[in-house]
């Protein structure tokens, strides 16, 4: 190879087992300065496991690791930090009860004689956040911030460590286009400073945009490691899934049926009286077989709208709601479920899954009443139903009795989706349904959405991926600061028009319903 530098980090013949299950086998990987190295592979291929080996989280692996030519065996994350390796984990690793600045300096507090220099930390945090364009104050509690902001803070934390190797495990899974662009600009400047970056993503556009070099894993094995020019997207997908596959996907909109849901003057108040309302005066309606996309930047209130509809905010949500023409009042999630609604939330770890429970228990949780007679669970029926739906969604696990927390990120997402599919809802509220899901399974989810709508199910879809929004929505609403500011029919919408409506709403005028 004609490389002017030695690798910053090199893995040779790395393998890793969990119990009897081998999840990595003989993997080699080299990271050079000034390059973005994409790590690609399906859900469960072993990418995050490899990241955790480099980050010092797992030390019981086989094979060797070299940092700047020196062989090392890291046994804890702080050691990795000291070696100049910094990681943005796939699952958020922030302490939600601590402030933004405390999280960023966690473990490396600025101090004088043991006393934390809070002022200095806050100032440094403010500068860092400004550079990334994060809308948060250093004194805010992380738990109070929206999920995209939390991801940005996780990124800021990794950036603050002045690392030589920066590993990013699906950093943009919760970010919208603008936020991602800021991250990419930052990545370019890190590159020109000679950092090496490992980047994991299931978004093909990002890979095309960033890649210098691509390594593909499949079933824990190295498929190949080549320069980006040699691996155009179709071929990359072929390597990942092991068969050629079209990336394009088409929505087959069935003829729409009768109205499933109509809301008028729907508002969601903030947690305290003095807070701004999260959703204001929203009116919309959706018919059987329709997919209604709702776009908006962070803070636009589209996620709050779905949660409010589902009864998550109790009486803080006001307004008139009709389901199949009948006026209803929904104060609690159970009520919404009785009305045939299902909500897939956008944060699987915090609000979607019970991580210490098994896959089966998670999948059947919302439907447990139907799987029990007089309260006693019918285990066989439960297992059968869970197997069926898990197979349809291609959940990849050694056994469905495995704890959900031990699944790969994308497979966790599929389990969360499976739980709601089992309920057989009339109205499906999907907030980022394909977050962290690999290309193959994404197509599978889209295909399922086509099938569901063909059966008369109505879907409201929120997604930060523009291509997904445009491909799957029959109609698109755009929200800004809690209000609906524009409506497009699916065929008429363009990315530019949507972004414009989301950023600079037309003069404050009510959209007549």
């Amino acid at each position, binding site marked *: 190879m004609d490389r002017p530098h030695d690798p910053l980090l090199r893995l040779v013949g790395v393998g890793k087992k969990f119990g009897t299950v081998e999840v990595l086998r003989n993997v080699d990987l080299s990271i050079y300065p000034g390059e973005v190295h994409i790590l690609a592979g399906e859900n469960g291929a072993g990418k995050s496991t490899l990241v955790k080996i480099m980050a010092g989280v797992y030390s019981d692996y086989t094979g060797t690791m070299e940092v700047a030519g020196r062989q090392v065996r890291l046994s804890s994350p702080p050691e990795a930090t000291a070696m100049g390796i910094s990681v943005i984990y796939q699952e958020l690793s922030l302490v939600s009860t601590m402030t933004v600045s405390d999280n960023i300096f966690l473990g490396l507090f600025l101090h004088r004689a043991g006393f934390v220099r809070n002022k200095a930390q806050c100032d440094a945090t403010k500068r860092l956040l400004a550079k990334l364009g994060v809308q948060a104050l250093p004194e805010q509690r992380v738990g109070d911030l929206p999920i995209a902001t939390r991801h940005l803070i996780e990124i800021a934390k990794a950036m603050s460590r002045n690392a030589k190797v920066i590993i990013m495990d699906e950093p943009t899974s919760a970010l919208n286009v603008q936020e991602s662009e800021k991250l990419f600009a930052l990545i370019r400047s890190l590159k020109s400073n000679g950092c090496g970056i490992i980047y994991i993503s299931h978004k093909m556009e990002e890979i095309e945009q960033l890649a210098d070099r691509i390594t593909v894993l499949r079933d824990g094995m190295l498929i190949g490691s080549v320069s980006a020019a040699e691996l155009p997207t179709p071929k990359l997908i072929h390597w990942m899934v092991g068969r050629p596959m079209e990336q394009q996907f088409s929505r087959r909109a069935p003829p729409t049926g009768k109205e499933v849901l109509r809301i008028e003057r729907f508002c969601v108040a903030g947690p305290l009286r003095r807070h701004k309302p999260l959703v204001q005066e929203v009116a919309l309606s959706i018919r059987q077989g329709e997919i209604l996309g709702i776009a908006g930047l962070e803070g636009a209130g589209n996620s709050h709208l779905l949660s409010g509809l589902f009864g998550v905010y109790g009486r803080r949500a006001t307004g008139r709601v009709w389901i199949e023409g009948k006026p209803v009042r929904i104060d609690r*999630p159970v009520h919404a479920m009785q009305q045939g609604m299902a909500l897939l939330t956008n944060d699987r770890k915090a609000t979607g899954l019970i991580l210490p429970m098994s896959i089966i228990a998670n999948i059947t*949780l919302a439907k447990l009443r139907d799987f029990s007679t007089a309260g006693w669970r019918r285990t066989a029926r439960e297992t059968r139903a869970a197997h069926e739906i898990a197979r349809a969604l291609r959940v990849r696990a050694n056994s469905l009795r495995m704890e959900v927390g031990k699944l790969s990120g994308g497979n966790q997402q599929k389990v969360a989706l499976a739980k709601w599919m089992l309920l057989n809802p009339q109205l499906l509220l999907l907030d980022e349904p394909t977050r962290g899901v690999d290309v193959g399974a994404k197509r599978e989810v889209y295909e399922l959405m086509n099938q569901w709508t063909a059966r008369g199910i109505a879907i409201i879809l929120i997604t930060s991926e523009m291509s997904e929004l445009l491909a799957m929505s029959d109609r698109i609403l755009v929200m800004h600061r809690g209000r609906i500011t524009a409506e497009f029919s699916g065929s008429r919408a363009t990315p530019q028009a949507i972004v414009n409506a989301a950023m600079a709403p037309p003069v404050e005028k009510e959209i007549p319903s």
Partner: protein
Amino acid sequence: MNQTTPRSNTPAPAGGPSKSDSPSGAVVVENPHEGGRRVGALLHWMGTPVARAMAALLLVLVLGTIFNANGSFFKIATQRDTLREVSDYGILACGMTLVIITGGIDLSVGSVLALVGVCFSIMSIHWGWSAWIVIPFSLLIGAAVGAFSGGLVAWFGIQPFIATLAMMVFARGLAEYISGNMEVSTAMANPDGTYHYVPVPAIFQSINSSVLGGYLAVVTVILMFCAAVAWLILSRHRWGRYLFAIGGNEEAARLSGVPVVGAKIGAYMASGLFAAVAGICQAAQEQQGDPRAGIGSELTAIAIVVIGGTSLMGGRGGMGLTLLGMLTIGYMEKILSLNAVPDAGRLMLTGVIIVTAVLAQRRRE
């Protein structure tokens, strides 16, 4: 299916250096039997909480065979007494397991035990009521107290530690008030200050006896029944699944339609109910209702649950683990007393052993 999902399984990539020959992208939903991997599977099993709880128990039993106090450790009567002495704690631990799995804790069980013991004794000794009335009444008192703590936790959102600490103090006070701060026994005061004795009620005697030719105490049978009930709830009933879900992630459980408030109140109510059962057993064995009974027994019950390997964070654990924890504590206490270890040493050793057992339980990651 249709034109949009090409399912043709073309072989491995032509240009790509493929190391896998199988048409991948397939789903391994279940790996049914891993034939030649018995050893690996065994090693894996050794890491499970059940295996670790068994290891702790085994260690204690080995200690027992070494320090066997001239063979008295091996006597059947010793086994019976060990089980009998730990039964009350085991019954408390059944309810405690349910509560701890929801991520809570119940500090009030020792006081509830005393309160119910006092009420049970007054009703059966002083008032001479039949056991058919007294027992349901006593159980009702325990369940009501538990439901009240549960309401404080689930409805008003008070921290379980605080809510049940308050209930622990309150119930103890109530027990002292009802009993006039004296043991309720068969010795009845006459107006002139002397005492006369009334006969011990039949129900006291039957609870304080043994079955199977004297080899199994009745309280142990009651414990086994309680454990079976708790086991059925946790592993076969919908409500048990809800308890795990609440302990694992309360918000996600609520969003999945789990009746969080009801399920939680139920857990504390069950804990109060089991505490009432323990109170009845305790009073019957002592042949009196003691308002100072069971002080500190909530801590023993918690220790049993935790040594078994149920997580104090909630969401993980089970009744089988609790039974193993109970045997560990029971045998440990027995071995120490058989070897006449003085009380001070016994307490210190107990502390050390609890920490050791919990360290051994800790999951490595």
